[in-house]
C-alpha cells in the first residue's frame, strides 16, 4: 500500500505528533474522568431492569416522533421538487442552478441538531421546531437526490418531447417525471426512515418527540426509564429500516 519506507515512517511520526498535540490540547478533568468506570458500573446497575411502567409517557413520545417524521416527510417530498428542479444543471439557467446548489450545500453541512436548536429558539420548545428541522433536512436530501437523477436522465427522451412543441411544464410531465418518479418515491421512503431516526434525537435539544423524554429522564438520573426509552428507540429504528427496505423493494 504505502511503498516507500521513509514515507511510512514520516506518516507514523506525524501521526504520533498529532496524538500528543491533540491529547495535550484537550481540556480534560482527569479526576472526574477517572471516576468514570465506577460511575459506569453504577449507572448500568441502576438501568436494570428497564422501567416500562410509565408507558403512557413512552407511547406519547413515540407517537409524537412518528407524527413528526410522517408530516416532515410529506412536506419535504413536496417542497423538495422545486428546489431539486432548480438544482439540475440540464434544466435551468446557470444562476438559478448555482443558487439552488448553494442552498443545498449550505443546508447539508449543518447538523440537524444545530438546525433544531435554532428553531427551538425561534418557535419555542416542542414538536413544531422538530418538524421544521426534519422538513429542512428532508428537503435538502430529497432535492439533492432528485437533482442528481435529473442530471443523469436520458436527454433523448426529453429532446423528443421538446421537438413536439411541448413547453417547459409539459416537458416536465412527459419527459422528466416518468424517468425519475420511481427513484423519487424510493428516496422519499428512505427519507421517512431517516426522519424516524432523527425524530428520536432532535428532542434532546427540546424539539419534541421521544428524544425529549429521553433527555428529561437522563437529567433526572432516571436511568431505568432511560434504558426503557433507548430500547423503544432501537425498536422504532428497526421497524423504520425494515419498513423502508420492504417498501422500496415493492417499488421495483
Amino acid at each position: 500500500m504505502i511503498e516507500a519506507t521513509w514515507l511510512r515512517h514520516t506518516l507514523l511520526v506525524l501521526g504520533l505528533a498529532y496524538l500528543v498535540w491533540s491529547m495535550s490540547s484537550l481540556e480534560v478533568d482527569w479526576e472526574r474522568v477517572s471516576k468514570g468506570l465506577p460511575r459506569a458500573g453504577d449507572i448500568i446497575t441502576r438501568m436494570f431492569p428497564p422501567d416500562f411502567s410509565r408507558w403512557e409517557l413512552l407511547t406519547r413520545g413515540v407517537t409524537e416522533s412518528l407524527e413528526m417524521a410522517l408530516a416532515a416527510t410529506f412536506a419535504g417530498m413536496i417542497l423538495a421538487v422545486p428546489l431539486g428542479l432548480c438544482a439540475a444543471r440540464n434544466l435551468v439557467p446557470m444562476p438559478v442552478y448555482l443558487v439552488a446548489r448553494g442552498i443545498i450545500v449550505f443546508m447539508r453541512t449543518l447538523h440537524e441538531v444545530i438546525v433544531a436548536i435554532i428553531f427551538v429558539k425561534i418557535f419555542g420548545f416542542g414538536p413544531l421546531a422538530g418538524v421544521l428541522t426534519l422538513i429542512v433536512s428532508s428537503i435538502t436530501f430529497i432535492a439533492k437526490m432528485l437533482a442528481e437523477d435529473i442530471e443523469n436522465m436520458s436527454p433523448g427522451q426529453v429532446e423528443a418531447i421538446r421537438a413536439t412543441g411541448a413547453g417547459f411544464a409539459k416537458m416536465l410531465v412527459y419527459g422528466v417525471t416518468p424517468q425519475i418518479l420511481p427513484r423519487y418515491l424510493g428516496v422519499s421512503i428512505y427519507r421517512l426512515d431517516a426522519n424516524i431516526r432523527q425524530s428520536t434525537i432532535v428532542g434532546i435539544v427540546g424539539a419534541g418527540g421521544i428524544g425529549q423524554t429521553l433527555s428529561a429522564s437522563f437529567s433526572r438520573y432516571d436511568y431505568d426509564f432511560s434504558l426503557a426509552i433507548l430500547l423503544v428507540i432501537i425498536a422504532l429504528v428497526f421497524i423504520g429500516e425494515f419498513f423502508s427496505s420492504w417498501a422500496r423493494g415493492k417499488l421495483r
Partner: protein
Amino acid sequence: MLAIRELTKTYDTGTAALRNVSITIDEPQVVAIIGPSGAGKSTLIRCINRLVEPTSGSVELNGENLTALGSRDLRRARRHIGMIFQEYNLVERLTVMENILSGRLGYVSFWRAFRRNYPAADVAAAFSLLERVGLEGYENTRADALSGGQRQRVGIARALIQSPDLLLVDEPTASLDPKTSRQVMRILVELAREQKTPTLINIHDVQLAKTFANRIIGMQDGEIVFDGKPGQLTEKVLTDIYGEEDWSTEAAQASGEDAPETAAAS
C-alpha cells in the same frame, strides 16, 4: 415549402458543422441526406427545428422564418414539425399510447395532457396509426418492453400524429437489423407520401437511400456536394461524398432501378 438558406453552424468547440448550406424543397418529396459520419447531417436536421441553434442563415417553412421565432412561436412551429430519432427516444416508462399521444402535446392544454385526457379525434387517430404501423393491441404496453423495430414504429406514429408539415428523420434505421430497417423505411415513406409530407431523412446506408428517396443530397464536411435523383448517384459522385473506395455495386444498382420502390406503389 421548405427553404434553407446559407445555414451555418459553428459549435462552441469551434467545429464548423455546417457551412452555407442551402436546400429548397417545393413539393412533398422524400429527400435522403447521405454522407460520412461527422458530415453535419444531424446538425442540419436539428437546426431546422432549432434543437440546435444555427449560427447564421435562415430556415423558412411555408413562408414562416423559423430562425427568427421567439420561444413561444417556436413551440407553435415545432408542433407542425415531426421528428424521428436514431435511438427512438421514446419515453421508456410510458405506454405506447402515451408516447404516440405525446405528439399532440403542442395542441392540447397542460391540464388535459397531464390527465392523459386527449380529444376523441386524437385518440382515434392514434389507434389508426397504431394499426398502420402494425402495432395493433400494443397501446397499453410500456415502451421499454418493445423491440427496436417496434419502438421505431411507435416513433413514426408519434411524429405523424402531429399532422406535420415537415418530417425530420435522423438515422431511423442505424440501430436496426437490415430486414427491420427496410420494413421501417417502407412504413415511414408510405405514410409520408400518403399525407403528402415533405420528408428529410439522414441515412448513411446508400442502398436504402436509393430505394426509398425521390431525391438525394450528399454532404461532406458541412457542405452539400451532391443534389440530384437517385439514378444520378454514380461511382464518381459517391467518391466525391465518401472518398476513394470501390463503389461499383452501389452505383450499378442505381441505374437498374430508376423509380424508387414505393413511389411506384403509391
